[in-house]
């Protein structure tokens, strides 16, 4: 992670950010507990985490709507901490959209240009351009409450974008939309970001959304960044147990390295399984967490070199969803396994029938080993 380091392509850097809140019970909660983050120019960065992880606080701190207890913000090398929200060249799309109910769609979109003193003729042109960009060209005279949720969402987006901000901050903007519209907006947003060339910081608790849209994902938990990486890295090489569990479905097992030989590991896990895995930098006796994605367990044999590693378990539930079968199985010592198999789905020969004890095959290179309690 490049926290705190200055590079020419970093737009905004956050270093040592701490923000505490007092809970109603009187105890202090660290919403941000030492955040270091460098945001690159033109990237789509997602802050991903469960509710209460500090992601929205971080966004509000960047917007200037919340202050840091300690730490600094730097915009292109200049300190930002004493700059009030209205002088920061960032704009926010709020979760509730926060459209002004007393202003028409046009006046909402033109608000930022208006207060900045942009000439009316240019303002009108930019508002019209913005609205037609998101397909709302003919709704300018409507009032916000006369629009559907999806339309309001677009108005909020354009209202922020017409000001050409250096950063566009999006606070779970899709969470109020229905599932179908959300999927559509995800693709539109990503395309829009590419088109306007503005850096997006997107806050969400939806890991699928994060994987779909982001250039990089910062997974947060308890006020700290757990991992900052591309969606691929985040999914396949999570930094720790939290990231592995939060992003995607997973079989997560605690265990200990019992044999290590030039990157080939043998691990004994809780529930008495022995797994073969690839992974450098581990020594015999190391406590580790092992991630085995459900899609990397299959009913068909996987032969790698001269080994064909397997796990044996009894099928408890098998759900056929067309292209694949979702299997919940349990080992003889009570360990639950999730399997997403595509090989049996097409055969329909009863291999995965409930109650049968089957061998699940895996490729050791697909087993991801993490040091227990590991941080980035």
């Amino acid at each position, binding site marked *: 992670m490049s926290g705190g380091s200055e590079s020419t392509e970093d737009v905004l850097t956050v270093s040592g950010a701490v923000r505490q809140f007092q809970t109603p019970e009187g105890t202090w909660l660290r919403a941000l507990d030492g955040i270091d983050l460098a945001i690159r120019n033109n990237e789509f960065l997602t802050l991903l985490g469960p509710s209460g992880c500090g992601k929205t606080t971080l966004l509000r701190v960047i917007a200037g709507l919340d202050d840091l207890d300690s730490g600094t913000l730097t915009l292109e090398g200049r300190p930002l901490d004493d700059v009030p929200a*209205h002088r920061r060249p960032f*704009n*926010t799309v*709020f979760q509730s959209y926060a459209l002004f*109910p*007393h*202003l*028409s769609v046009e006046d909402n979109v033109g608000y930022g240009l208006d*207060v900045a003193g942009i000439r009316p003729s240019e303002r009108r042109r930019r508002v019209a351009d913005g609205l037609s960009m998101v397909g709302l060209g003919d709704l300018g005279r409507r009032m916000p409450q006369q629009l559907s949720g999806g339309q309001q969402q677009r108005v909020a987006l354009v209202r922020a974008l017409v000001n050409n901000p250096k950063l566009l901050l999006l606070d779970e903007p899709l969470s109020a939309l229905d599932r179908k519209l959300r999927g559509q907006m995800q693709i539109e947003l990503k395309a829009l970001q590419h088109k306007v060339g503005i850096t997006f910081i997107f806050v969400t608790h939806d890991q699928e959304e994060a994987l779909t849209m982001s250039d990089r994902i910062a997974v947060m938990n308890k006020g700290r960044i757990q991992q900052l990486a591309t969606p691929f890295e985040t999914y396949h090489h999570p930094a720790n147990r939290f990231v592995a569990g939060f992003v995607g479905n997973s079989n997560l097992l605690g265990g200990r390295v019992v044999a290590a030989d030039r990157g080939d590991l043998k691990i004994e896990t809780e529930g008495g399984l022995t797994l073969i895995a690839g992974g450098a930098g581990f020594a015999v006796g190391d406590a580790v967490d092992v991630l085995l994605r459900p899609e990397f367990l299959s009913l068909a044999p996987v032969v790698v070199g001269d080994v064909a590693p397997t796990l044996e378990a009894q099928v408890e539930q098998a759900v056929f969803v067309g292209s694949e079968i979702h299997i919940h199985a349990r080992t003889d010592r009570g360990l639950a396994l999730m399997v997403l198999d595509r090989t049996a789905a097409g055969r329909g020969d009863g291999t995965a029938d409930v109650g049968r004890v089957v061998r699940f095959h895996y490729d050791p290179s697909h087993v991801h080993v993490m040091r227990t309690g590991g941080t980035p």
Partner: protein
Amino acid sequence: MTAAAVRRRRNLLAGYGLLVPITVLLGTLFLVPLGIMVVYSFLEPGVYGGVSWSFYPYNYGRILGWPIGGGEEFDPVYLSIFFHSVLLALLTVALSLLICYPAAFWVSRMTGLRKNLILFLVTLPFFANLLIRIYAWLLILRPTGFFNVALQTAGLIVEPLQVIFTGTAVLIGLVYVLVPFMFLPLYASVERLDPILIQASQDLGATPLQTFRRVVLPLTLPGIVAGSIIVFIPALGNFIVPALLGGAKVMMSGNLIEQQFLKARNWPFGAAIAMLVMASVLLLVVVYVKKVARRDEQTGGVGA
């Protein structure tokens, strides 16, 4: 007729039925006395009180200068009392607004128990008799009262200030009595204002002043309008406050009307003054509301 149409018709009838009690109540207790006053204002005053039943528009002439006749003379003092009353009422509105607007924001930011306590305290004066409360102000403001003694003790003044029995004392009294009526509607509209809109305005680059003018003020305008109207009307018609705190020097139209009805026993003239005051208040309020409504229409009529 279909079953649905029958049901709709029955609901409509039930709706009208529910309106009957309030219509009867307002009709008999409000419209009938008002009608009596309208009629009286056009009758000739009797020599020993009461009226003689002949058309007599000269009560209005005495106030407005036209029509003149029947031994009545135009006296500009009545118009001057009226305009003075309007001025005092407008000042009362302005002062209450100045006090209540910031207070409404302050209270709306409070949490649970404290907020309810403040709201309770605002309505607390209603539990005590108005006369007693006004009389307390007499004690506070008189030359040997709390106000002057406190200032003298602090060394700010040497001689006691003559506040009691002046327009200032009446203004203080009116503001004191009417502040809760300004506070409650203002508070309701401020409470409804979503703080996220203020943040959105800041986020879009508006300075605090721009945010106030473009977001806060338009969205709380309905509360300002409602508060202003329900403070202005009783302020203009008030007669207890000027009677107690204004002494002989300050007379408002309310006192004038009271005087005509109770002391001079000239009901037709008192009725004529009352009609003119009522007409001008109605006119003022209608103009004000129309103006705000037009503005509101332009801005979408939110919160009205």
